[in-house]
């Protein structure tokens, strides 16, 4: 189905997540009824995809700007706020660790950034392992742009010796055994050619002279980001402590990714320990994950005005606490200080707090008001279209509506029209090879309609009023839209006179009969001697005639066809677009 919502998101497929109600109950710490949950989830911004009462499971869609919703743990945090079981930002303790990653400036040539973190005492059940796999996949997609921008590596900490070195090497200068293809030692170049992950992600490293590699102290390969880890650090049932590396091209995004992963693992009961990353070039050392809250100061009036309510300071603070932000009156008059958890990647502007406040308040509680004003007008072209429709149905013609995308063979060859590729719109990458251009005439569409309906009762008289697109490199976007009218009549006795009467009826009704002339012309689509050029004020605007039998047969039809097509833009004396 074409959903309105999907339309506005620009066609992004929404990520989904399956929630087991029992697990959610454990995480939230409250008995949950699946029916109530179905209702409640929509108010924190989750879209219900399906509900399975027998299995006690709910499948939800979450927005790509909320990758922290990629786990039941992440959703539970927000639900606790919604149910007012916990208010304000959740706290996560990061113990200072001693592990260091040294960054070789050569990585600037290929993948400049790395951060890391240590997760201790993991004890994951089956569901949690599945979640960990899922969340990585979702983060790779949502924040990582399919690993291009961010790639995650998860390792068994106890199998490698620090410090680690993040560097870049010539494609064939080292060899190691990679996960999922453990039998051979391969160079990075070979991995890109032979390893399934290598083949899949080789495009990210295309054209680079050096490839990123993480070594441990003994020069063992830990990982070849963003492709695959070495077998050395494989995570098994026995793994107790994890090292997580996040590499990428966007420093902000790799930190967000680490924050979401580590807070989720902490919610599963593990301990977070920090890692020091030394950027040797500028002697800068950073410590990650950095789970400090991000402070914003926002005007209360701004928020109230935007939403259209008048919340007191206390009410507003409560709203923010419910969406799991910390909030306090600010020292600055009229302002409120807000602290945002490190896993929230979607806060870019004060306006983002407007929405959070409204969610905390509950969209369902908001009043509906309306501002009056403005006098509306229809677009003159649509008005002309509707006038023509009225005239055409009065002449007993049935309206059809066809696609604008079309196929050049049917559009030109079937009509015996010449087709010069460079003179027409060309679509670069259609999924249906069928659709390689946009229409420049309406008539071929009407001929296809006759074919589709050829067994229906005759006479078939149909028309279309619609836009066509022509290449025009002088315009801003390289094309021009015109409004056309086309009509065909299809039965045993259809002929030029019949369609000429239609044209006369149309031009008389439009009050332009005096300005219209039809003069003999040539067109391969029509029968010689039975085709005329329609001119308006001396300017050619269309063609009218009996269709060439070859064209009729190309469309598998069995009776004569008389047709007209004209550019009705010209009647308004203006260009549509």
């Amino acid at each position, binding site marked *: 189905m074409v959903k309105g919502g999907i339309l506005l998101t620009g066609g992004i497929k929404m990520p989904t997540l399956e929630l087991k109600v029992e697990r959610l109950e454990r995480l939230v710490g409250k008995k949950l009824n699946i029916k109530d949950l179905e209702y409640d989830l929509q108010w924190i911004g989750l879209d219900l995809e399906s509900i399975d009462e027998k299995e006690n499971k709910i499948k939800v869609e979450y927005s790509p700007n909320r990758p922290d919703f990629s786990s039941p743990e992440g959703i539970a945090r927000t639900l606790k706020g919604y149910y007012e079981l916990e208010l304000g930002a959740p706290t996560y303790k990061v113990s200072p660790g001693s592990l260091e990653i040294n960054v070789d400036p050569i990585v600037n040539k290929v993948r400049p950034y790395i951060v890391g973190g240590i997760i201790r005492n993991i004890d994951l059940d089956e569901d949690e392992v599945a979640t960990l796999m899922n969340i990585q996949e979702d983060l790779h997609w949502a924040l990582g742009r399919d690993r291009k921008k961010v790639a995650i590596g998860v390792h068994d900490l106890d199998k490698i010796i620090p410090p680690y070195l993040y560097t870049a090497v010539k494609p064939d200068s080292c060899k190691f055994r990679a996960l999922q293809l453990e039998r051979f030692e391969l160079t990075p170049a070979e991995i890109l050619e032979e390893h399934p992950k290598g083949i899949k992600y080789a495009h990210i490293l295309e054209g680079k002279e050096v490839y990123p590699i993480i070594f441990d102290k003994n020069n063992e390969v830990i990982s070849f980001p963003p492709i695959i880890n070495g077998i050395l650090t494989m995570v098994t049932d026995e793994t107790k402590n994890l090292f997580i590396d996040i590499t990428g091209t966007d420093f902000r995004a790799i930190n967000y990714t680490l924050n979401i992963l580590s807070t989720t693992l902490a919610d599963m009961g593990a301990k977070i320990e920090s890692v020091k990353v030394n950027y040797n070039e500028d002697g800068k050392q950073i410590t990650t994950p950095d789970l400090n809250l991000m402070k914003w100061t926002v005007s209360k009036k701004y928020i109230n005005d935007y939403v259209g309510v008048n919340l007191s300071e206390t009410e507003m603070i409560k709203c923010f606490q419910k969406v799991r932000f910390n909030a306090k009156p600010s020292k600055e008059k009229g302002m409120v200080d807000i602290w945002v958890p490190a896993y929230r990647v979607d806060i870019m502007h004060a306006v983002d707090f407007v929405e959070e406040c*409204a969610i905390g308040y509950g969209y369902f509680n908001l009043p509906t008001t309306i501002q009056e004003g403005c006098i509306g007008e229809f677009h003159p072209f649509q008005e002309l279209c509707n006038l023509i429709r009225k005239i055409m149905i009065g002449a007993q013609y049935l309206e059809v509506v066809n696609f604008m995308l079309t196929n050049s063979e049917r559009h030109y060859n079937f009509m015996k029209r010449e087709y010069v590729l460079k003179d027409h719109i060309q679509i670069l990458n259609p999924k249906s090879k069928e659709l390689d251009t946009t229409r420049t005439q309406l008539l071929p569409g009407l001929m296809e*309609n006759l074919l589709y309906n050829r067994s229906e009762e005759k006479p078939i008289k149909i028309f279309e009023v619609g836009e066509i697109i022509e290449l025009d490199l002088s315009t801003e976007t390289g094309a021009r839209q015109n409004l056309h009218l086309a009509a065909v009549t299809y039965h045993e006795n259809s002929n030029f006179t019949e369609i000429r009467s239609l044209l006369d009826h149309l031009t008389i009704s439009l009050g332009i009969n005096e300005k219209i002339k039809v003069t003999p012309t040539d067109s391969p689509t029509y029968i010689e001697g039975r085709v005329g050029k329609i001119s308006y004020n001396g300017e050619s605007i269309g063609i009218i005639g009996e269709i060439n039998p070859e064209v009729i047969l190309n469309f598998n039809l069995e009776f004569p066809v008389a047709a007209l097509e004209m550019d009705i833009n010209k009647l308004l004396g203006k260009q549509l677009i």
Partner: protein
Amino acid sequence: MGIKLKQNVLEILKTLQEKDVECDASELAKEINLDYIILMSAVNDLDKENLGGFKEKYIDYLYLTEEGLNYLKKGLPSRQLINYLVKNKIKEISIAELKDKSELPDKPFYRAIQNLRRNKWIATSKATGENKVFMVADDFPNKELEVFLKTFKKKPFYDKSKLSKKEAELIEILNKRNLIQREKKTQRLIFLTPEGKKIDIRKIEILKEVSKITSEMLISGKWKNINLKPFNVSISGPRMHAGKIHPLINIINEIREIFLSMGFTEIKGPIVESAFFNFDALFQPQDHPAREMQDTFYLNNPKQSKLPEKERVEAVKATHENGGDCGSIGWGYDWSYDIAKKVVLRTHTTATTCRRLAQFYREKEKPPVKVFSIDKVFRNERLDHSHLAEFMQIEGIVIDENVTLCDLRGLLTEFYRKMGFPKIITRPSFFPYTEPSLEIAVYYEKLGEWLEMGGSGIFRPEVTYPWGIKDPTRVLAWGLGLERLVMLKYGREDIRDLYRNPIKWLREVSY
């Protein structure tokens, strides 16, 4: 006893007696060159005298499906393969390559291979290590099924009840391959009763009854002395094929009226659109998945668009890179002019509303401005019963001072009420260029269900500031798809029907 019949009824009786079979009313009307209505009223007369009548019969017409029509043109798959092999003088070829070249789907391809083997026209063998096809015949006469398929060229349908045994067999084979579709049609069959069959026409008295008043009768006053035949007013007349507005256009016009009644002005914008207005000006980062080729139609010709005035482009660039002057932190990456210049078929009409923001800036307009558009948008999708590559989007925006989220809710409530949905829910959602965002679900009475019916929000400052639209002037926006509404309203299940124009539906649709 003296049966009296009118002259024309008598003639029809005579024709029917000569024919001595039941016959189709509309065919008979054509054959004896008589108006259908007059024929049927005559049959009604025969019925009154118990001499004849009509009965209705449903018949199954069998047509070729689209695939069938395709084979009618190109030949059955097996014929297509043989033609390809013969034309290219191929004696042996790997099955995989042949499949590739044939462009046939799996099922028909392998069935064709099987049939060709059965005909002993080809052999297959793995002797060379690869699964290969070898030509083993030189002559490839038309098979019975092919000959039969070709008969559809002359006559596009068969009447199921009139099939010979052989034809029925062949139809069944075609049907199994999904090449046949059927349609029920009603036929009126005229018959004579045994009395009607044996009555001697010469003994029937001619009734001077007229069914039609002529001009001459009126002027001369003769009409006063005429027996005017009563008509059976309860039967419906034959279907008339009048002109009609397409259901999609009809709904579009209803929605346009709603917008107009709420003070909105209609706008239009280019379908061939720059990535700049389709994406960049709407704050969609240049590496955003929605911009990828697999979702968007990019054009090879024209390849590049012209960007608008430099300072506005720079303002958009700055919001992407660092937030510009609007108080945002931006996306934090290097914005590329070249990516913004790419040309697409617009993926949403928000590109058009965004151009309206640019116009607002250029013409130094004052708020409020309310505009709407109902227009085509394009997505790179494969077509099936629930997906289209182009469809209509309905969109409205309000540019005004001090407009609020509550005003947006009020606006939506009013709009959907006028659309026939008095009960709506607006709930939190996400769209890349609005904040706050909300999704609209309407209660659809007919199904007793809540349906998602649009997205909405207030344009982000990152979208409006580059066009000088600054707080407290804000832009409310909402949009929804049209096709789903139309499908619900008309109970269509295949979304392609809306653009395939089945004339039967268009002729009979009730608005």
